[in-house]
Every structure is written in C-alpha cells, then in structure tokens.
C-alpha cells in the first residue's frame, strides 16, 4: 500500500510518501528530515497530537487561562482529554508553566497553563 502524508512536525509541511505492508513500513520518501520519517511511522500505528484549550479562572483579569499539553497524546483520545481539562477551575493568579493536571488520563503528558492571569 502507498499513502501520502502532509507532515505536521514543522511549518514546511513536507509531502511524504510511505509504502507499507500491514503494519510494516517498507519505504519513506519526500521528507526533508528524520522527524518526517518518525511522523509517518507514528501515523501508521497511532497518530499523536498536541492540543491547546482553555480552563476557567475566577477572580482574574480574564475569565480563562490558555493551556496545552507538554507532549502529544493519541489523536483519538483528544475529545476525552479536552473534557477532562475543562473540569479544571482555577483561581487567579495563574502563572504560565503551572502544571494543572499531571499525567493526563495516564497518557504521560501534563497540562500546563500557557499564560499569566493576574488578579482582577
């Protein structure tokens, strides 16, 4: 089987063609760096993505703090992960880098705040 991927590892977005048989990758071409090959191998087994969303903050200058994961998680778990993150409620002040959830859903990634929210 041959499949073409758009690599999402960086903004170049290489078009990568992979030849595979079952779960085995036979060849990878079109990638400009090693990240592309790893990306395609990962896509064939379990696509991984990082994600950003927000959590509620009370008593802050803004009602929300933006958050992201410290490492990617399986794409198919993202809706569940976002629901879990939305359960968090914070009180200002919030500091960028604060760990809000450790080891989200046992997937090995932490949820961190990505901006400071000062008290109102």
């Amino acid at each position, binding site marked *: 089987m041959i499949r073409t991927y758009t690599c999402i590892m960086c903004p170049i977005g290489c078009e990568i063609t992979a030849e595979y048989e079952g779960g085995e990758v036979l060849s990878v071409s079109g990638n400009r760096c090693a990240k592309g090959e790893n990306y395609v191998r990962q896509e064939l087994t379990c696509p991984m993505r990082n994600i*950003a*969303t927000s959590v509620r903050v009370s008593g802050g200058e803004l009602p929300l703090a933006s958050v992201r994961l410290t490492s990617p998680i399986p794409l198919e778990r993202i809706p569940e992960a976002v629901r879990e993150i939305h359960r968090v409620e914070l009180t200002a002040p919030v500091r960028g880098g604060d760990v809000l959830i450790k080891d989200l859903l046992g997937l090995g990634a932490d949820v961190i705040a990505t901006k400071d929210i000062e008290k109102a």
Partner: protein
Amino acid sequence: MRTVDKKIVVIGAGPAGLAAAIALHERGERDILLLEREKKPGGILRQCIHDGFGLTRFGESLSGPEYAARFIARAKELGIEIVTGATVVGLDADKTVTAVAADGMTAYRAQAVVLAMGCRERTRGALAIPGRRPAGVYTAGVAQAYINLKNIMVGREAVILGSGDIGMIMARRLTLEGAHVKGVYEIQPYPSGLPRNVEQCLNDYGIPLHLSRTVTEIHGRDRLEAVTVSRVDERMKPIPGSEERIECDTLILSVGLITENELTRMAGAQIDPRTSGAVIDEHFQTEVKGIFAAGNVLHVHDLVDFVSLEAEQLAASVTEYLHGGLDECGVEVSGEGVIQLIPQRVSAKRDVTFALRPAKPGRNAKLRVEQDGTVLAEKRIPRALPAEMAQITVKAEKFLSDSPVKVVLSFD
C-alpha cells in the same frame, strides 16, 4: 498637549514591535518607547493559544501567549519603556508621533519611528455578500477572541468561509469546544492556509474542505439561519444553478488580512498596492527617511517567527541610520510570478534577501533574481504555494550595475 523627545518610537507592541525594541536595546540604544493601544503587550499572539509558534526562532513549539511572553519578559528585563492603552492618532513626516492615552494627548518627537501596527481582518462588508445582517457572522479572529479570551461561545452549527490559517484553526477549536463545523468553503481552487493546518485542523476532525465555492447569500433575521453556497468558475464568479442551502447559526470568515497602514499614509509614505504595505528599501526604510516598517504592517506573514526575524533585521538598520546613515537604494525591484515582494528598492552594494509569495501554486518552481538579463541567484521550490512565503538572497558581489532587478518565479 505635552511634547516629549524620544530617540526611537515603536508603534505597536505585538511580535514585530517587541522584537524590534529588544534588538535595538541589544544594539546599544537606550531611549526607546513602545506604544501599544491594547491593555497588554503581545498583539494577536495573546489569543492564538494553539501551539506551533517558535520552531524557527527558538527551535521549540510554543503557544502564542508563550511565544509573546518570552519577548515581554526580555523587554521588562532590559527596562524598555512600554506605554499600553495608548492609541497613536497621528504621524508626521518629521517623525512626530501623536498618541492618546488615559492621561491625555502626547506628541513624541522622534529621530526614528518603527511602524509595527500589524494587520486586521477582511470583513463581510469587504466581500459584499448579499443578504440580511443577522447576528452570528464573525471574522475568525473575532470568534477566536470571544472563545479564547472572553469565554463566550459563538454558536453551535458553523460554516467557515475561507481556508486561511486562522479559519482552519478556529474550525478545530470550535469542534473541540462542542460546536459542529459543517465545512470550510474556499473560493480558490486550492487552500489558502498551510498544508499542515489542512491536515491537523480539518482532516484530523473529519471537517470537509470544499474548494472553488463561496457563500452567495446570508439568511436569517435576528440570528443567522442558513447560508447559500455556490460553486465558482475559473474567474471566481458564482455559477448559476449550483446553489446549495446550508443550515447554520454561525458563519466564520477567514478571507484575508489587511495591513493597517493609516499612519503610514498619514506620514506620506508610499504604499505598494501589491503588498498593501509601505514601499521599503533593503533597510526596511519607507520613502520617508527615518520611518521604518516590519512585520504584518509591511506584508502579511505566514509565520510569526519570520516577523520577529524581520524586526530584528530592521533594528540593525535603524541603529545604522541613527549613527551615520544608510546607503542610498536607487535600484528598482520588480516581480514576475510572485506577489508580496519586498524590498522594492535595493542599493546593489550589499547582500540582500528578498521575501515573496508565489502568485500561483505549482510543483518544481524555479525562483531567480535577474539583472541585465543575467541570473544573480536562483533556487528551486519543490512545492510552491501562495500560503507559504519564500526567500532568496543575492550576494553583494553578484550585482552587475544600477539597472533594475527582477525577481521571477516560473514553472518548468
């Protein structure tokens, strides 16, 4: 009105203004003022909470607020003066910057001015979509500010017009926040944003992308009820009989960005209709001596990393200008097969890097710079896309004369 002397005034504390001010400080300048109309510095990055920023500039993937925070922290550490809540309402060719803030009006008399006002979004009015004017029609950036800064959900059933990066990012964001995105409709026969965003924002969530289609009518009285979508022909004119009604309560527009150049015009600087930004020379200097421009106010960028790098280059020129002056740039630059080409004038005495976008998408493009029929530099672009900026550098010694220079992108 108060009058204050300042050596350098930077207008806008978004990514371009912050990077320029920091780089100027690092080059030894101390009398710098950054003016920002919002309550906080950071510009549009404050609401761009997705990751992917900083891969070029920092070698890691950051969210927008984190990328901005690095520059804001550095500016603080250096003690750079930032006045927020200050709107610049006037700019004269003599480099007087007039700003209005809570404490009144101030005229800053500067020796050099850096334009870093960024851009704004094209709206429904600019597209002239027929129909009523119900609630529920937003530009992508406005929807992004509501959802990411104000905790206000914009709707439940959304249609997105235009496949710009912000539109695709909002398609993913709306989906994750529980809305149903029915599809993204793009008037061009190709996506206008980056391929990686088609992949990770649309394909990952099963959001369909429909090309060569546009919204031709808006329905609903108080709230949006539906849109009519039509196919378009090669000249992007709607094809009669191809109309399709799509029920939705939200229409998100991601149909282009417009450089914010009112002040540039006020100062008397010439605007290039092809970039919609100021005509600049290789020093990022406008036609008005001592007024410089970088970032999205000059030409709309694909990545913030390039905005920062451009502003840092600008800082080097500003310092040179203040301490002895810059080379005259009398050599005209024109383009063929390219859009958004800068700079428009060069000295032909120094290395210069041209930035541009391909006019059309295609494979195996050849990008070259010519003078007097001779190729000064050339490179290949395996996949040329208008969504992606390209650059090409010509070494000083390659220039042959003071004849005009042409930047050409062609396909084999």
